[in-house]
C-alpha cells in the first residue's frame, strides 16, 4: 500500500501534468525574448512535478510507520461537516442568513461539543445571539449585505 507522502507526491505530479497541458494551450508563444503568459504557470507546473517526484522518492526511501492523520472516524467527521456546510450555503441561498445561521450554529456547536457538557438552552441562546450580533455588525454597522434568501 502506498504511503501518505507517496500519494501526495503522485497527486502533485498528476496536478502538474494536467496544468502543464492546459498551460501549453495558451495562445501566446513562449520565446526566450518574451516568455509571455505561459512563464509563471509553467514555472509552477515544473515546481509541482519536480517536488511531487522529490516527495515521492523521499517517502519511498524513508523507513518506519506513518502516524494516522485522521482515522476512519476523523474522515467521517470531516465529510459530515462538509455536508453541513454545503447545506448551510444552500440554506443561505434559499432561506437567507437569518434563518439558516442559527440552525447551523446550533448544529455545529452540538457536533463540536460531543463528549463535553453543553446545555441545550445555552447552545440555542448562543446561536441566536451570535446570528443577531453578526447581522448588526455587518449590516447595521458596516452597511454590508447578507443573503436574504429567494423563498421569503
Amino acid at each position, binding site marked *: 500500500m502506498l504511503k*501518505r507522502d507517496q500519494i*501526495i507526491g503522485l*497527486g502533485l505530479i498528476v496536478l*502538474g501534468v494536467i*496544468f502543464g497541458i*492546459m498551460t501549453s494551450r*495558451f495562445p501566446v508563444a513562449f520565446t*526566450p525574448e*518574451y*516568455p*509571455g*503568459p505561459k*512563464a*509563471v*504557470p509553467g*514555472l*509552477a*507546473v*515544473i*515546481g*509541482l512535478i*519536480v*517536488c*511531487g517526484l*522529490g*516527495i515521492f522518492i*523521499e517517502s519511498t526511501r524513508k523507513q518506519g510507520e506513518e502516524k494516522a*492523520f*485522521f482515522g476512519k472516524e*476523523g474522515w467521517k*467527521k*470531516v465529510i459530515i*461537516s*462538509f455536508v453541513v*456546510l*454545503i447545506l448551510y*450555503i444552500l440554506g*443561505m*441561498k434559499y432561506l437567507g*442568513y437569518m434563518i439558516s*445561521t442559527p440552525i*447551523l*450554529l446550533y448544529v*455545529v*456547536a452540538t*457536533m*463540536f*461539543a460531543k463528549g463535553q457538557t*453543553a446545555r441545550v438552552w445555552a447552545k440555542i441562546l*448562543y446561536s441566536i445571539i*451570535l*446570528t443577531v450580533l*453578526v447581522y448588526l455588525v*455587518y449590516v447595521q454597522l*458596516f*452597511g*454590508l*449585505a*447578507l*443573503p436574504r434568501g429567494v423563498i421569503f
Partner: protein
Amino acid sequence: MIANFHFIASQLIMPLNILLLVIGNAIGIIFGAIPGLSGTLAVILFMPLTYSMETGPAIILLISLWVGGCSGAFIGSTLLGIPGSPSAVATCFDAYPMTKAGKAGKALAIGMIASFIGTFFSAIFGALLSKIVADLAFKLGPWEYFSLCMVAITMVIAISKGNMFKGLASASIGLLFASVGFSPIDAVQRFTFGNVYLYGGLSMIVVLIGIFGLSKIMVEYGQGFSPLPAVDTKSIKGLGISLREIRESWKNILRSFGIGLGIGFLPGMGAGLSNLVAYSSCKNASKTPEKFGTGHPEGIWASEISNNAAVGGSMIPMAALGIPGDSTTALLIGALTVHGLEMGPMVFKNSGDVVYMMFATVAVSAIVVLALQAMGVRTFPKILKIPYHYMYPALIVISLVSAYIDSNSIYKCGMMLVFALVGILMSLGNLPVAPLILAFILGPTLENNMLKAFQYTGTFTTFFTRPISGILLILAIGSIFSPLLRMLVKKIKTSRQEI
C-alpha cells in the same frame, strides 16, 4: 513625516477610530493567545469588513488586530506551554517553566513589557527607515522587483517546517492560484474554465480563509479537539518586575531588538524566525547558558522583544518596496490595494500621510495593548478557557459571511469550501501554508515585473547582470538549495573528522 502629523493626529483621535483600535487590539490579543488561532487569521477574517470603510479606519482596524495578535501570542506560551503562534515558540522555553515554578505573574509581565518595547520602538525605526529605503528603491527596475519577489518566496520556503520539496510545492500551488484569470500585459485567459467568476482571478479572501481558517477548524475537528491544560491562577499574583530588572537586561534587549528588526526587514521572513534566532543568540552570549530552559527571564526578553520588533521591521519593505516582510504584511498589501493604495516607493509621494499613519497606529497600538494586558492579566486564563464548540462555529459563520460579502455572491461561499478541501489536503501532506500565501499574493507583482523586464531588454541575462538583481537571485537560488548545502557541509566536516 512631521508634515503628516496633523493628518495622523486627526485620524487617531477620532472616537470611531479609537474604538476600532481598542476592539482590534483586544480581539487580536484573544486570537494571538489561543493556540490554533493567530493574529494573521484575525486580519484575514476581518479584512472584508474593512472594504466598506474609509482608508483610515480600515488601516487602523487591520493593524491593531495584527499588533494585538503578535503580542498576545506569549499568553498561551506562558500559561499553557503551547505557543499561541509560531512567533512565540521560544517564549515557551522559559516562560512556562516560570509559570510552573509559581512565577506566572512575572513571566507575563516580562512578556507584556518586552512586547511593548519591541513593537513601539520598531514602529519608530520603521517610520524613520522606510523613507530612506523608498528613496533608494527609485533606482530599482522590474528586474530587481522580480528578484525581490523571488527572494521573499524562497526565504519563506527555506524557513518552512518540513522538507524543501513541500515548501516549494506549496509555493508552486500559490503561483498557480495567482495565475487564474486574465494574464498581465497579454490579457490571455488562464484556468478560467469559461467561468465568469474566475475572470478576475481568485479572491484573496476566499482562498486564504478557506485554506488558512476553515480547513484548520475542520482538521482539528477531524483529529479531535485536544483540551488545553488547566491554568494555575494562583501563580498570577501581581506582576513582580522592577525597573532595575529591565535595566539589567538592556544588552539582551538591544541585541534582540536588532535581530527582530533586521529579520523582519528581510523579505519573506518575520517573527516566526526572529524569536528563535534571538533566543539562541542570547543563550550563546550568556554567562549562564545552563539556566536557559529552566525559567530564565532573559529567554523571555529575547524571544518577545525580537518577535514584536519584527512588526516594524516587516513594515519597511512593505511600505517602501511593496514587498511583504511576512505573510501578514502580504495580506495588508492586498487589503490596501482594495483601498487604492499601491505600496512601493511612490506611495510616500502619493499617500505619505497614510503610510506614516500606519506606523503611528502600530506605536499607539503597542501602548493600548500594554494597557489592556496590564488591566486584564487576571482574565488571561479565562480567554484560554473559551470552549472550542462555541468559538469555532462563530469563526465558520464569519468565514462564510466574509466569502459572501466579497462580491455579494453565494458562489464564493462554495468556492471557499473547495479551498478548505485544498487546505485539508495540504495538512494531510504536511505542506506549509506560508509559501502558498506569499506566492499567491506576490504572484501578480512577480509576473508583471518579469514581463516588463523582458519587454525592455528581451533577454533573461539582464536579471543576473544587473548587480542588485543578480545578488538577490543568487540569494534566492541559495536559499532554495540551503538544506542541500547544509547537508554537504556537514558531510565534509564529518569526513574531515574521520580522517
